[in-house]
C-alpha cells in the first residue's frame, strides 16, 4: 500500500487543563474519505484544526507523504496543499465572492495591485462548474443564501489544487438538494486522488460518503473502522458508549 497522505501521530492538545485531544492517531490515504465522528466537544474539530493550522498541537507529529511537516499557522497548512472548509465557512461577509475566494492569495497585476478583473474571471469559471446558477459576483457574501455561501467556501478550497481537504460539517446548513451536490463533489474529488477528512454528526452520511470512520469521545480516539465492516448502529454505539463493536474488538 502507498504511503499515507497524512499521518497524525499521537496528537495532544489541552486548553487550560482540559485535554481536548488526548494522544490521537489518524491517517488518510490519497483518494480516501475518512469521517470523523463524535459528540459536540469530542475533540474532532480541535484535532483537525491542528492539521489546518488554526491550533498548534502540544505534542505529537504530523507527517505529509511520509515526511515530517511543521504546521504552525494556516499559511503553513496551505503550503502543504491542505485546504479547509470550516463549519463557520470563514468568509469575510463584507467582501464579494472573488475577494473571498482569493483572500490571502490575491492575483496581482504587474504593478503589484490586486487584479480584481482576473480574480472575478477565475471566480466565474469555477463557480460555473460548482454552482452554475450563481450570478451575484458583485454582492457582498452576506447577501448570499446559505447554499451560495457554502459554494463560495468550497470553491476556495478546491480552486488552489488542494491535495488534502478538510470539511467541517459541510452540509449542516444545506437543504437536501444542496447536500446531494456536496456528496457528488466529494466523489469527484476522491476520483481526482484527494484525501478528504469529513467531520460530521450524521452517521448515515458518514456511512454513505466515507471509506473509514474515526470515532472520538472525550478527546480520545475510540477507534478507526472501515464503514463497510460496521452498521450505523455500531457507529452510534461507538459515539455514545465509546467502545468498539464486539465483532471488531478482538
Amino acid at each position, binding site marked *: 500500500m502507498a504511503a499515507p497522505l497524512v499521518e497524525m501521530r499521537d496528537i495532544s492538545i489541552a486548553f487550560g487543563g482540559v485535554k481536548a485531544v488526548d494522544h490521537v492517531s489518524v491517517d488518510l490515504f490519497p483518494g480516501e474519505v475518512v469521517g470523523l465522528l463524535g459528540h459536540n466537544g469530542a475533540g474532532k474539530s480541535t484535532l483537525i484544526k491542528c492539521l*489546518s493550522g*488554526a491550533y498548534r498541537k502540544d505534542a505529537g507529529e504530523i507527517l505529509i507523504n511520509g515526511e515530517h511537516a511543521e504546521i504552525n*499557522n*494556516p*499559511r503553513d497548512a*496551505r503550503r502543504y496543499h491542505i485546504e*479547509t472548509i*470550516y463549519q*463557520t*465557512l*470563514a*468568509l*469575510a*461577509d*463584507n*467582501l464579494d465572492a472573488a*475577494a*473571498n475566494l482569493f*483572500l*490571502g*492569495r*490575491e492575483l*496581482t497585476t504587474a504593478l*503589484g*495591485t*490586486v487584479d480584481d*478583473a*482576473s480574480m*472575478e*474571471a477565475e471566480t466565474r469559471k469555477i463557480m460555473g462548474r*460548482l*454552482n452554475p*446558477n*450563481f*450570478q*451575484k459576483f458583485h454582492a457582498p457574501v452576506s*447577501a448570499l*443564501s446559505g*447554499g*451560495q455561501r*457554502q*459554494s463560495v467556501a*468550497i470553491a476556495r478550497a478546491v480552486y488552489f489544487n488542494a491535495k488534502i481537504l478538510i470539511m467541517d460539517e459541510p452540509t449542516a446548513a444545506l437543504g437536501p*438538494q*444542496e447536500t446531494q*451536490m*456536496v456528496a457528488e463533489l466529494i466523489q469527484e474529488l476522491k476520483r481526482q486522488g484527494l484525501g478528504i477528512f469529513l467531520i460530521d454528526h450524521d452517521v448515515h452520511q458518514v456511512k454513505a460518503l466515507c471509506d473509514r470512520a474515526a470515532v472520538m469521545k472525550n478527546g480520545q480516539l475510540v477507534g478507526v473502522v472501515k464503514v463497510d465492516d460496521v452498521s450505523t448502529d455500531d457507529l452510534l454505539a461507538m459515539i455514545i458508549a465509546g467502545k468498539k463493536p464486539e465483532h471488531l474488538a478482538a
Partner: protein
Amino acid sequence: MSDQTVSPANPPRRSLLSTLEVDTRLLGMIGAFVLVCLVFNVLTDGRFLTPRNIFNLTIQTVSVAIMATGMVFVIVTRHIDLSVGSLLATCSAIMAMLQTNWLLSTFGLELGNPALPWLAIAGGLIAGTLIGAFNGWLIGYLTIPAFIVTLGGLLVWRNVGWYLTNGQTIGPLDETFQAFGGISGTLGETWSWIFGVIASVVAVIGLYNARRTKIGHDFPVKPAWAETAVAGIVVAGIMGFIWMLNSYQIPERVLARDFAAQGLEVPEGYSAAYGLPISVLLLIGVAVAMTIIASKTRFGRYIFATGGNPDAAELSGINTRLLTVKIFALMGFLCALSAVVASARLSFHSNDIGILDELRVIAAAVIGGTALSGGIGTIYGAILGALIMQSLQSGMAMVGVDAPFQNIVVGFVLVVAVLIDIIYRKKLGAH
C-alpha cells in the same frame, strides 16, 4: 448548490441611477452637503457660497480630513484611535522645535536655511509613524484594546508635546513650511487650471481603462452614453471646483503688501487669484493614495477582510497582528501630515493645537459612513464627512449661532447621521 432566486443577467428595465452605476451613498452625502450649503447660503444672505468662503472652508477641512482617511482604516478593523489630536500636537511640537531650535543647535544650520522645513517635516513624519506603530504593537501583539491604548495616548502625547516645548508657543515657522497651511501657499490661477486639466485627463483615462478591462474579460459594462455621462460629471466637478477657487481674487491690499515687499507697486488693473491651496492639493494626494490602498492593494483588501471577519482573515493566512501595526503606523503618519498643515495654517505651534481633533476625526469618518462594527467605510465618505462637519461649524458661526448651540447641533447631527446610515443599511439588507 442551486439558487431558487436566479437574477437574470440583463434585467429588462433599470433606473437611471443603476444604469449609471452611481454609488447611492455617495449621492446621498453629496446631497446632504449641498443641502447644508444652500440652507446656510440663504441664512447668510448669500455669503456662504462665495468663492472666499468656499476657499476658507476647504483649507479649514484639510487637517481633519487627512486624519479621517486614516481613521477609516482604524475603524474598519474594529479599532478606534482617540490619540490622533494629541499625536498631532506632539508631531507639531517636534517639527516646530526641529526648525527653530534643535536643528540649529545640533547641526549648526542657520535660520532660513532652505533644508530646514524639509528636515523638520521628515522628522515629524518619522516620529508620527513610529509612535503610531508603537500603538499598533501594543494593540496587535500585546492585545491591549485600542480604546485603552489610545485613551492613554491621548494623555501621554498631549503632554509629551507640552514637555518638548515647555508649553511655549513656537513661531514663526519657516516660510516654506507655512506654504502647507493654506492661504500662504497656493498654486495661482494658471497652475490651478493646469492641475484641473491633468486631473480630468487622468480621471477619464482611469474610467476608460476600467471599461476596457471589463470588456477584455467579457464582463457586463454600462452603456457608452452612461459612461460618458459619468465622465462628464467628474470632469465638470473637477473643473467647477478649480473655477470656484480661481474666482477668489487676492484682495488689493494684500497684493499691494506683497508687491511692496519686493519694492514694487501694483501695476494698473492687475489682479490675481489664489487658486488651489497646496494643503488642498496635499489632501487630494492623500485621498487618491488612500483610495488606491483601500481598493487596489493587498494591504487594503486585508484591512476590509479583517474588519468583516477577523477569524476568517486569520484562517486565510493573514497576519492580523502585523496588519494592526501597519494600520496604526499609517494613522500616525497621517497625524504628522495633518500637523504640518495645522501648524502651518496657524504659522506657529501652540500647546493646544489639535485639541478635540480625535472627536472631529472620528465623527467625520462615522458621518462618512464608516461602521463602528467594522468592515465598512470609504475614504471619500470620510472626507465628505469632514467637509459637512466643517460646513456646519463655520456656517453656524457665520449665522451667529451661540457657541453652545453650535456644538449641540454638531453632536446632534452626528447621532442622526449614524441613525440614517443604519436605516439605509437595513433597507439594503431587506432588499
